[in-house]
């Protein structure tokens, strides 16, 4: 009797463990399918000329030219707009993170830290509309512009950069700070030269991941940068970034453009895989 019950419990243990493993497998099926389809549909189109040549926004074959065109302008626009967003958000995020980690161990610091966390959950489309509303208020002519999009992306990036900086700097041992003070180094220099340099790998990783996420954003750009087949033509004009290109090509009717969308997606996926692997290797066993 007792023997039977124990065996039942052991079997149940194995069944439950097996079901949990099955959950992992089920969750990974979409990832595998997505990667497989991206490589299957995108790899053969990914070439140097695809990466640098101009777009063929019409997406139809004309005699002598039956290609999907390239995504050169979109890549350029992405680099410019996301780069501008990074220039705005990374210094701000790092400074705020420094405050939270070095000076903010009080009620105010905790409140700011809390709401920064909350801000990371703000839907990006709402951030886009916010940027739009602000730009419309000041200048209707520039409501849809590359600068508008850069501001939206910067707002999306700031909370992430702030929190990773805070977390990264908190991992720096206090002994380093105390050592610096003991040598008579002023606090700001101790923070900038010792704490910041010691924690830099985590800050850089966080910033790179934030940039990568911004590079794949679409929703806020639909209401800010709009779209332009020329890519980037100035901060006051609409711009066509990689993400929106994928969206418009994927939802368009032309099979040529759909192929280009897969190619652009594969490019983003490869960049994402490379960067997240690099980040993982860079942070491996650090401060553990």
């Amino acid at each position: 009797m007792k023997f039977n019950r124990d065996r039942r419990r052991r079997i149940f243990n194995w069944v439950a463990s097996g079901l949990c493993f099955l959950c992992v497998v089920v969750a990974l099926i979409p990832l595998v399918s997505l990667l497989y389809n991206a490589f299957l549909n995108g790899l053969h189109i990914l070439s140097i000329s695809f990466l640098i040549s101009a777009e063929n926004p019409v997406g139809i074959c004309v005699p002598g030219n039956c290609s999907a065109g390239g995504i050169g302008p979109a890549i350029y626009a992405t680099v410019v707009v996301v780069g501008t967003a990074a220039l705005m958000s990374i210094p701000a995020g790092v400074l705020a993170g420094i405050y939270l980690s070095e000076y903010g161990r009080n009620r105010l610091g905790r409140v700011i830290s809390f709401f920064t966390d909350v801000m990371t959950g703000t839907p990006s489309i709402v951030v886009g509309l916010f940027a739009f509303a602000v730009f419309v208020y000041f200048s209707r002519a520039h409501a849809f512009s590359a600068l508008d999009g850069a501001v939206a992306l910067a707002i999306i990036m700031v909370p992430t950069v702030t929190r990773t900086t805070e977390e990264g700097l908190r991992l720096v041992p206090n002994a380093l700070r105390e050592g610096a003070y003991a040598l008579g180094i002023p606090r700001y220099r101790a923070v900038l030269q010792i704490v910041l340099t010691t924690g830099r790998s985590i800050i850089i990783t966080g910033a790179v991941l934030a940039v990568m996420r911004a590079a794949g954003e679409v929703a806020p750009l639909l209401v800010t940068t709009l779209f332009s087949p020329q890519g980037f033509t100035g901060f006051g004009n609409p711009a066509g970034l990689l993400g929106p290109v994928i969206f418009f090509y994927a939802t368009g009717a032309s099979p040529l453009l759909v192929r280009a969308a897969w190619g652009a997606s594969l490019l983003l996926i490869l960049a994402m895989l490379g960067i997240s692997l690099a980040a993982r290797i860079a942070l491996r066993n650090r401060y553990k």
Partner: protein
Amino acid sequence: MLSRSRSSGRTISSRIKRILDLTFLGVTLAVALGLLALLTTFILVLINSSHLTLIRYGISLLGNPKWAPSSNHFGLLPFIDGTLITAAIALLIAVPLSLGIAIFLSELAPRWISEPLGYLVELLAAVPSVIFGLWGIFVLVPFMRTSIDPGLARANASVNHALHVTIPLFTGPILGSGVLTAGVILAIMIIPTISSISREALRAVPQPQREAALGLGATRWESTRMSVLSYARVGIIAAIILGLGRAVGETMAVTMVIGNTDYIPTSLFSQGQTIASLIANEFLSTYASPLAASAFLEAALVLLLITLAINIGARLMVWRLVKTTGGGGIE
């Protein structure tokens, strides 16, 4: 003694040091406060830019089912419905899966298996939403249309027939795109959020908690169920709420598979629209009319307030947890 030899220069330089120190503190504090100001500005700007519809209709838009901007009908009910239904489907699918993943990775699997598998699951979170949308259009929608939806429709029909009821869950034309598919794609996207935060919550459970159960003769699973899961309950609930927040605000993937019709879904096969997908789809074609632009901004305001409430609730739970268990690396 060492300092006295240079004491004349020292008072000046220490004053400069102090000024620089305070300046640095001031700058970092100002930027940090700027973040709080940003969030406040956010809400104020959205209220201000939607004042046209706020004054004219107030919050009655939330309960109004008719959306037709050309005739000044700005009911948001279909989109609130769409948002709630897709998020509910996503949670129904994602919560059990994510809990299974979190339990397997933190309790059952040895480290050399859980590390790479956990990394793969978190890769799902790094895939841009629009790429999920592209995959959704060309892989998931056809798959749902041919392999999943017909079976569900048959099951629904036979249940209705057997019990003499009319459950309208899986009825109507099978298009592949629609509310159900949007819920499935949302589930895939929130699994990494829920599973990784639940994992952290499980990891924060003290080891003696497990050992006590194992020492009484419990199997691995019994120890997990009885002493680990109950201990990590608050963290897991917070993880689920954060997943809900992500599902509610997710835009592109949903926009690309939900079908984008402005009506209240009549079954899970119906096409529909979420608040986020409404903005992504229709803002450009209608923003030129001030009243319509204001209605969109009111929709954005509603979405912001919903996600703020969700996130504040979940973060409060996580923070209280961190305080009571003394940390444990829960973010």
